[in-house]
């Protein structure tokens, strides 16, 4: 796996020419340029693995579960950005118990074959998944899952079925990429769905990767914003407004994902926002106007030590860490307009990323290879779109299009998918997509749902 440490230095003489190229890309919206950038990114990401996924074998009382499981696995594998599912119309017919017709499977072009078997053992649901390498005809992974359905309502059974499908997907992704898939992960976000009418209250929520089990975490009766998951997936840092001695303060708090009493990380005078956990979970970068105007600060994860690392008359906001924690990307208006900057985590060696055009915000560093920085940028009017900056080529690729404000992108832990916020008219919802902008899907629908953060499964 390529490591970010081996990537070229960010600031090179190429920057001037790169800036020109990027200007053309955005201003003229040239699709050819755009596609070239994504082609290069895809080459580094690895070609999609052709995978065949015939219907699962099912006992008579498990057919319904097998169908749902097959549907969920299919979707997970497609969204994973690792697999390309071979058209089922070319699958060879084969009955359970008979030898697998490998020659016929090879002629479909499939590299991987998944067999699922779902049956009931009394009130216990038994699920077997097997992953085969078509070339050799060998089983490369296989798991048997058992779980009791006794006393479970239908919704609960369906949830269970979805979960086991997610677990299989994540194993399959791990097998082929070395990094576990993300179907069993979770997303923290902020919603006004339970706010009393006429108040601006927003609380912290968590949901599964597929939008299931949306549940409330905070009961602050205030405005929560901008959560960030600890890399372990057990804690969430976020901004909230809280009343102290009569003055409301914009503070950084931390809460367990399971809920409970939040703890204070930073509450100094002014506005504290945009917390970002470091990749090892020991530090949190924030922007704070403690010292007069917005600067980037680093806190330890108890909030007892803090250090200011930018010192600039401009507003420095929206920090995010590189995967090996040695650099921080942030947004500053020090040059006139809001642009992306990268600095060492010590605060030294600050340099601007050449991304021409309007206002930029919400950068987030690809967490595995570290070669991409996703961000949002103004695309005219009140439209914002999600872009990636490729640190290898210093070029930019636009991932979203269409009306509205798409902002606050956050990478999946495996760096292959993105979750973001899309405001269209008065509706603001959480969406997901692949790293290339494909498979865009909406996960929320009740109330306004904003500032998502993707987290590991704890």
């Amino acid at each position, binding site marked *: 796996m390529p490591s970010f440490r081996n990537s070229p230095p960010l600031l090179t003489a190429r920057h001037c020419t790169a800036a020109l190229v990027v200007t053309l890309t955005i201003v003229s919206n040239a699709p050819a340029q755009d596609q070239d950038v994504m082609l290069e990114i895809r080459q580094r990401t690895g070609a999609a693995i052709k995978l065949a996924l015939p219907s699962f074998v099912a006992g008579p009382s498990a057919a319904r579960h097998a169908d749902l499981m097959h549907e969920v696995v299919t979707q997970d594998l497609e969204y994973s950005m690792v697999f390309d599912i071979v058209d089922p119309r070319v699958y060879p017919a084969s009955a359970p118990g008979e030898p697998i017709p490998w020659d016929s499977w090879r002629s479909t072009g499939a590299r991987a074959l998944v067999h699922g078997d779902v049956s009931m053992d009394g009130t216990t649901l038994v699920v077997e998944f097997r992953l085969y390498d078509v070339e050799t005809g060998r089983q490369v992974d296989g798991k048997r899952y058992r779980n009791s359905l006794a006393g479970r309502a239908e919704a609960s059974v369906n949830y269970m079925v979805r979960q086991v499908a997610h677990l299989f997907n994540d194993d399959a992704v791990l097998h082929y990429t070395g990094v576990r898939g993300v179907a069993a992960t979770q997303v923290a976000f902020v919603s006004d769905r339970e706010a009393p009418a006429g108040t*601006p209250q927003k609380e912290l929520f968590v949901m599964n990767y597929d939008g299931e089990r949306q549940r409330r975490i905070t009961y602050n009766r205030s405005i929560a914003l901008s959560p960030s998951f600890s890399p372990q997936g057990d804690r969430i840092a976020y901004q909230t407004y809280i009343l102290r001695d009569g*003055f409301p303060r914009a503070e950084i708090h931390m809460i367990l994902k399971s809920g409970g009493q939040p703890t204070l990380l930073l509450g100094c005078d*002014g506005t504290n926002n945009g917390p970002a956990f470091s990749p090892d979970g020991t530090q949190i970068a924030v922007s704070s106007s403690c010292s007069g*105007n917005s600067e980037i600060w680093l806190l330890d994860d108890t909030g007892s030590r803090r250090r200011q690392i930018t010192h600039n008359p401009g507003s420095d906001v929206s920090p995010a860490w590189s995967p090996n924690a040695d650099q921080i990307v942030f947004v500053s208006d020090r040059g006139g307009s809001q642009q992306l900057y990268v600095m060492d985590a010590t605060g030294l060696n600050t340099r601007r990323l050449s991304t021409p055009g309007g206002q930029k915000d919400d950068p987030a560093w690809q967490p595995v290879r570290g070669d991409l920085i996703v961000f949002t940028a103004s695309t005219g009017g009140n439209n914002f779109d999600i872009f990636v900056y490729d640190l290898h080529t210093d070029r930019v690729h636009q991932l979203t299009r269409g009306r509205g404000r798409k*902002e*606050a992108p956050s990478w999946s832990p495996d760096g292959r998918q993105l979750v973001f916020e899309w405001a269209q008219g*008065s509706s603001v919802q959480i969406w997901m997509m692949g790293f290339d902008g494909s498979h865009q899907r909406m996960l929320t629908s009740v109330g306004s749902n904003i500032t998502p953060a993707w987290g590991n499964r704890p």
Partner: protein
Amino acid sequence: MMRRPTPRFSLPALLALAVLIPACSKDEPPAPAPQPVPTPAPTPAPRPEVTPPEAGEWEVADAGEAESFLSAEQINARRLLRVIHFDYDSAEIRGDQRATLQANADWLREHPNVRILIEGHCDERGTREYNLALGDQRAQAATAYLTSLGIGAHRIETISYGEENPVAMGEGEQFWSQNRRGEFVAVTSEQGTT
């Protein structure tokens, strides 16, 4: 929500008294504090762990002129400190807003113990994080203007709500222009406790 109740002193209660006894003049003794009606206890079973309710010592002062005796909540409810507005994507104090700031400064000078919070707000355009920073700049700009007019910086705190607390919901300049604002919120009055 803005003030903590204090056990010995209640400004709203005093103001209520001032309304109830309009004839009360400066020469007259202060109105007596209301006494709790003693409840006859037929069976005096002493329960030492329960303290009987007491009025405590009421501090009594002259209510004076209506304007000179205001709680923070009254100052805010009467909008004695006025809102200023900003241009799109700007934290500069607009020429047509200077008179409002001057009026706020004059009022604060006449009420030297009032401490205020300046809230910076934005319209929905731009990203949330950007608007948090912009709201912060708006609050700072208003603070700088007030201090340049002689208001002590120690009396002012700032906060940004970005675009998260709009007063007008809708798309279009007539909504956005109302939301790009600086609000001046009294937090403690001259009689308030901190």
